[in-house]
């Protein structure tokens, strides 16, 4: 666990001088590598830069259509098409966890530091399994 955390921080350190979105995708990639959905992970995001970064890194498939995605990386709630998406949602703002009941986790910047939160009841509800490496980021509720 600590090793994973350290490697995450190391990645943060190494990429600290890079574009913030690049670092963000780097972290997201590590998170997604440690979760498993029923379907193969195909990412859609309302942030085109994030999609481009994922495409560049080529570890995960991406899509431009929300319906074809298995996981949604959401930055702004209004970009979420109502009713059309019953996918797993990973948000980029802690407050969106409250606003979007289907969102199971969040990666966001707090006081200049990267933070990860994964809501345990929601992943159980959505049959999302996560590796032990992400246990440290698990929360029972949203504060």
């Amino acid at each position, binding site marked *: 666990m600590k090793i994973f*955390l350290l490697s995450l921080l190391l990645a*943060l350190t190494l990429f600290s001088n890079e574009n913030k979105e690049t670092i963000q995708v780097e972290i997201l990639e590590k998170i997604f590598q440690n979760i498993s959905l029923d379907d193969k992970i195909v990412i859609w995001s309302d942030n085109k830069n994030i999609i481009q970064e994922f495409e560049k890194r080529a570890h995960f498939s991406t899509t431009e259509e929300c319906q074809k995605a298995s996981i949604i990386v959401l930055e702004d709630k209004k970009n979420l098409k109502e009713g059309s998406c019953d996918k797993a949602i990973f948000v980029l703002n*802690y407050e969106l966890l409250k606003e979007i009941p289907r969102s199971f986790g969040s990666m966001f*910047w*707090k*006081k*200049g*530091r990267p933070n*990860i939160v994964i809501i345990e009841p929601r992943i159980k509800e959505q049959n999302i399994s996560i590796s032990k490496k992400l246990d440290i980021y698990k929360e029972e509720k949203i*504060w």
Partner: protein
Amino acid sequence: MVRKRGLVVFSLLFMLGLFLAYTYNAISKAKETIFERIEKHEIDHISLVLQNLQKDICANNPITDQEGLVSFFEQKQNREKYEHILSMALSSDVKYSYILYKDDENKFRFLLDASKTDKANFNQKFDINLKEYNLIYTLKEPQIIKQKNIENIYVTYLYPIISSSGVVVGFFNIDFTTDIKMIILDSIKPLEAFFNILTIFIFIFIGVALVQIFHYFITRKKIFTDTLTNTFNRNYLEEIEHVLNLEKYSVAILDLDKFKFINDTYGHKAGDYILSHVSAIFKDSIRDSDILVRYGGEEFLLLINNRDDSKSNLNICERIRSNIAQENFSFDGHDIKVTLSMGVHKHPSLEKNLQEAIKIADKMLYEAKRSGRNKIVIYDEKLSSYSSASSSAKYLSFVKEALDENRIICHYQPIYNHKTGEIFKYEALVRIIDKDGKTVMPMSFMPYIKLTNMHYKLTQRILSLVLDKFKENQLLVSININFSDLMNPDIEQSIVRALKSNHHLASRVTFEILESDEIDNIELFKQKIHLLHSLKAKVSIDDFGSGYSNFKSVIDVEANFLKIDGSLIKNIDVNSKDFKVVKSIIHFAAQSNMQTIAEFVHSREVYEKLLLLDIDYMQGYYISKPEAHLVLKNELFKTVF
């Protein structure tokens, strides 16, 4: 001079580089000191605020453990109260101020957040993993974290909240902005950039200076080293001559015996082989403090350091001589034995300069050659008459350079047979072309190199030039030679080698020997003349009438010609005494079966006067000047006065 200038420039640049490095370092340290002072000032200020706040929280509220603290801040009004106090008490340099605690799962959580932006919720998890966040719990002391990777935050200050039971139940977290730091950095950025650029330029210049100095030393080595022998050359001697302390050295001139013979017999490659191997033996035989210079073809100059006694110096000379004598040189299947003659001046500081000392050492070398070679002759300043060595050292050097650079030539003056109207023969007269291309007459240098090794080298060169020129034609030629030259075994050998194999050439050569020369051993002199006769060469007594030899000696020599001295001829048209003396000499020569030659026939009057005396041959400017080419009959009597 170049070296000094280069070193001065390099030193200046190096000093400047050091100064810049020092200044840059001082500026960096000053910058760090400023930051540290700002940081200390901020922390001291905030520390007092937090201390009071901590006391207020713990003293006025029943907080004994972490749960108590969490419960206390669970109350919204408590959070708002302390958020308000905290935000009011903080300075503008604080970006974030909040209270954290560590829960049972070791996760850090917010209790309150007084920050104006990016506010966190109560109990919201906060992912932080620096050791100071755990240390504060064990040390119970404030912690300072210097941030590197967090945007706009350069220092984080942690202040513990300690319960009445002495346990750390939470801590204040204050994040300072980088604003002041950025302002300072921005203001000194131009200065830093200036120093950086200047330092880069200085280091480039230092690099260029280093390359140039390196190049200078490489070039210097080439300039001062003789490529064949790997010893110093004359350029080096000229370089050190003015700074050399002659009191610390003895001077020795080393010359390989019969080196010309080696070159002529085995070829120049063999000569080069011998020179390179001999110089290697020299170097093995001397010490590091001695200086070996290739002074000319097969001649070396050795400056022997007097760090030990003078006996040791002589030991070095003897060691060199015996090492060379013992060595058996083998080239192209031939075993070649080489010996060495050496002239030494133990106390060159007694002379005016190094050149004077070299000249004396050269004379000693000449003595060593004359007395049988493979010898060392040491100059004794108490006994020697050479102490009056004049400034003629420069002439010695002048001739040596001319020999080395092949600037020795011969002009030829016809000797006229007035009875037949034909040119009887030519007299070869040495000339040196100086470095400016001007022709230098022998009177300008010959008197100064007399009795030196240089003189016999010059004679050898003249012999070689003249014999080469006349071996392919039918003409007759006279060559001037000193008695002392004739006594020189090397010259004798050169003559024998050239004439023995070519009798036709020998019969056309006349050796003109100065009657005025100091002939101290008449029997030996006769032997040498006899040798020349045996080779079919002819002998002429030159400058007859100017010296003090008696007539009997001249008759004994059995010379073929008597050349009457110019001092008796030049005024013969006006001086009746000279006329009578010349008439007597002609009579004496006729009686002794010798033909006569009058030199210095410079005018028509002298010429016509000589016609009255039945002289056999005449030469002089009236008939023809010496020319670089062989003057033809139709060019005679054309000189305009």
